[in-house]
């Protein structure tokens, strides 16, 4: 009975496989080919153009530094926020709801929100001026103020992308029965020890998912950066966009796309190894 119907699950997932194949694998192969070919013949010309471009080094550096700055802060903030709501009795849902508002806003809109705060005529300058801290409007987002620009972009990214990490972490925390923490407490573990020795190991799967998702998204950062810094702060996706639209050079744009994919895959592999999840050690 069950034997003769073993094709059913395959039949049921077939549409999604076909769908993904058409809309993901085909473009992927096309992009790969575009990146490593020139006028239909295999060539590394696009790669060479990409690597020797003036903005290449800066965009790689910027993307990595931004990712390294933003992702750890987001994870730590999400863990803190998640642990705080876990201790609440009433009002939990409301707080979570407020915290996840940035999730409902598109990248570009988020960039615009922060632009309205940080631009010359923005809220930040108005407040600083109102308090008498600055004499005249100060520019924060220019080529001449790279640190301020970087901090502005990082804050906007953190504001926009922490909610998704928090949702995953809260879900992970909810899976940990309170008895484990209570038992640790009885046997003398301090709050910090309980967090590091009990909670963190038990939310490893959620942590792993959050890290992978957030890092991959961080390497794909674009709209927020574009809204705030334009080309003052080149990042990988931004370069791909420019080669595609400004320069109309699809080959180099494809080379960037492939590079981003390779970096994301590498990061994912690193996480899968570093934050290993052993099903034997889960509740």
């Amino acid at each position: 009975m069950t034997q003769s119907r073993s094709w059913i699950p395959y039949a049921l997932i077939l549409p999604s496989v076909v769908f993904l194949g058409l809309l993901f694998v085909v473009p992927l192969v096309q992009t790969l080919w575009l990146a490593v070919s020139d006028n239909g013949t295999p060539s590394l010309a696009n790669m060479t153009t990409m690597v020797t471009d003036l903005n290449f080094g800066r965009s790689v550096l910027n993307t990595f530094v931004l990712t390294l700055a933003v992702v750890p802060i987001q994870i730590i903030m999400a863990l803190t926020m998640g642990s705080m709501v876990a201790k609440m009795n009433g009002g939990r849902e409301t707080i979570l709801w407020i915290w996840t508002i940035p999730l409902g806003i598109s990248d570009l809109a988020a960039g615009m929100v922060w632009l309205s705060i940080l631009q010359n005529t923005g809220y930040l300058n108005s407040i600083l001026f109102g308090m008498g801290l600055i004499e005249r409007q100060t520019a924060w987002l220019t080529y001449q103020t790279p640190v301020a620009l970087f901090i502005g972009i990082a804050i906007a990214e953190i504001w926009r992308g922490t909610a998704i990490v928090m949702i995953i972490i809260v879900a992970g925390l909810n899976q940990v029965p309170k008895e484990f923490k209570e038992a640790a407490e009885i046997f003398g573990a301090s709050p910090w020890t309980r967090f590091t020795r009990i909670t963190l190991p038990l939310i490893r799967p959620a942590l792993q998912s959050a890290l992978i998702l957030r890092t991959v998204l961080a390497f794909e950062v674009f709209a927020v950066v574009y809204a705030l810094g334009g080309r003052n702060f080149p990042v990988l996706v931004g370069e791909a966009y420019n080669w595609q639209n400004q320069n109309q050079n699809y080959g180099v744009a494809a080379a960037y796309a492939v590079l981003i994919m390779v970096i994301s895959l590498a990061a994912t592999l690193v996480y899968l190894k570093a934050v290993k999840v052993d099903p034997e050690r889960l509740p």
Partner: protein
Amino acid sequence: MANIVIENIKKSFGAFQALKGVSLTINDGEFVSLLGPSGCGKTTLLRIIAGLETSTSGDVLIGEKSVIGLPPKDRGLAMVFQNYAVFPHMTVYENVAFGLRMQKADDARVKKQVEKAAGLLHIEPYLDRYPNKLSGGQRQRVAVARALAVEPGVLLMDEPLSNLDALLRLEMRTELKTVLQEAGTTTIYVTHDQTEAMGLSDRIAVVHDGRIEQVGTPVEVYNHPATRFVGGFIGNPPMNFITMPVTNGQVAAGSQQFAVPAQGGEIVLGLRGETVERAQSGQGLDMQVRVAEPMGSHLLLTGSIFGQPARVILPATETVKNGATVGLTLDPKRLTWLSPESGVSYPAAA
């Protein structure tokens, strides 16, 4: 040293009162069982003593010191959780070692204590395994070993043997009793298994509906239950309750007459089924036997006395036919008399 005094503890969850004023004193080194049906508040009381739950009112003293407001780790106790709470991400060894690690014990002491506790609970073969791969009973023993390994002054156990097979449970019971007695550990042991409570305890506290109905030695609680509930809850078969008419302070049971603590009206006789003897023909208290079941070690009779349901036990050598009427002789020293209105028993005759 580590005696426990529980003073008028009340606990409400919203509008629901889980504990309605519980007072209990446990002497240093004493083994006290909390015995009661499911949902009566045993775990709640244990969690309040441990400091995992706050009481609505009342006080808990451990070693003469109030511990209300102290975090669990400062109360000097260990606990076995009803659902084990064995850490899934640590090996059995590290689970048992957890309390000692938190006390910063050196490796030699950890090893010695873990091996001792593991040996006692027969879990040495699993020390390197993760709890995920263990059966419920094995996990439960890991939880007990974890608590014993720290050699606590006070040990709280919430149904620690509930998942073991009968044979292993009997063995663990004896071993637990021995080590805890040797170590002089003050123990509160939650169970709803009355034989376990009877066998292990210095004293039993019978809990019912958020209250302690009676505290006493197993023999006291068995022979002279304070209330109808206690008599009905303890013993197998449970105590029989037979309402009888009183005339001039006397109750007549067949040819026997008993002086009772009431002048007239009615009184309830609490009768343990195994305290009766078969009377000479035509004498004694009549029992209409519906079913007679030879159990091997004894003969179990189910039927009615004074028209009220009753179960009694006769020696295996007796034979009784289904539907027969047998006369029973009662032992005046082993009867309990209860008020029909309140269900509370009268003090045992001196």
